[in-house]
């Protein structure tokens, strides 16, 4: 269950940012999970709810955004539907994964600052 170690990394990153800005509190954070990031959004949410107690994130809701994976041809930009062979039929180019499809990103934090 690597979702737990990911949440640990997330919370320590948020705490570091809060300390750096001498924040009085953390009011929310938003995270983006690409479909091919290898992370289960539900497990990630559960891990967050388990871990946040006693941290600066204790009262901060987590907003998760799920990004469906998509592929396209790097030459002609034609979308290649998921589940198809990952090669453009017209150009015979190997498909390229569109941005965000495999990313796990901390997008932003709402901080209460003095």
């Amino acid at each position, binding site marked *: 269950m690597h979702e737990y*170690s*990911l949440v640990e*990394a997330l919370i320590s990153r948020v705490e570091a940012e809060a300390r750096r800005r001498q924040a*009085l509190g953390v009011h929310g954070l938003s995270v983006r999970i690409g479909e091919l990031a290898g992370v289960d959004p539900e497990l990630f949410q559960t891990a967050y709810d388990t871990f946040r107690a006693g941290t600066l994130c204790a009262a901060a809701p987590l907003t998760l955004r799920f990004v469906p994976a998509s592929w396209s041809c790097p030459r002609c930009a034609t979308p290649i539907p998921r589940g198809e*062979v990952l090669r453009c039929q017209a150009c015979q180019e*190997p498909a390229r994964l569109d941005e965000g499809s495999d990313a796990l*990103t901390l997008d*932003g934090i709402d901080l209460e600052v003095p």
Partner: protein
Amino acid sequence: MCTTCGCGDSELVPVELHEKILAGNDRAARHNREHFLEAGVLALNLMGSPGAGKTAVLEATARAAAGKGWRLGAVSADLATDNDAVRLEKAGIPSKAITTGQACHLDAELVHRSLHGVAWQKTDVFFIENVGNLVCPAIYDLGQAANVVVLSVTEGEDKPLKYPTMFLAADLVLISKCDLIPHLDFDMASLEDALARVMPRPQVLKVSARTGEGMDAWVAWLAARRLEHGLVGKVAGLAAHVHPAAQPHGHGHGPGGHSHG
């Protein structure tokens, strides 16, 4: 209002980060990668299900690469035992177990720590056998030159479709235990089709650790990676950056360069 002392107004500011949650691991992985390339070592991250045949492939690699004059080495993730490391030592690959306890994957920090117990600088090809798991090892960069996924013919042709993240990360898929195909209801074409739907550039080799089938092609693939990374003709172990300490130490990339205290 400031909630701490009531002295004045506090405000809510949105801080935009757009930062990878695994950024810390990626930094540690870059550090490992520098170590390996500086020392002329081709490092490979070997992944696959429990029992896919990862250790057996390495044992067979020692036999198949004997004529190459390569010095091999390995670290091997094991939940509780050091069985794999013992097997690899017997096969002539100096090895060490990374006991991971509950962890279901290796990360770059764990690999770095494990390097202090092995003479990895004196190797030409260094294998990192990951935890048997088709899910999360794929998302942790360890500093390897390439990812190799071992998938045995007994696991079913649909595995790539079920675990696309793992196969997306693979630079090479080794289809293992091919000696068993005559005894199975296994369809190689359908496995290759599944791989083509999750990997834009599928690279596949069919091997058997038992019979040695395909092992020469695998050794040739390794040689090609050494060439590609400029590791051929280098004398390993002469890099300026040495790792003598067995105890934990800090690492700096500050003005004084990369220091090991």
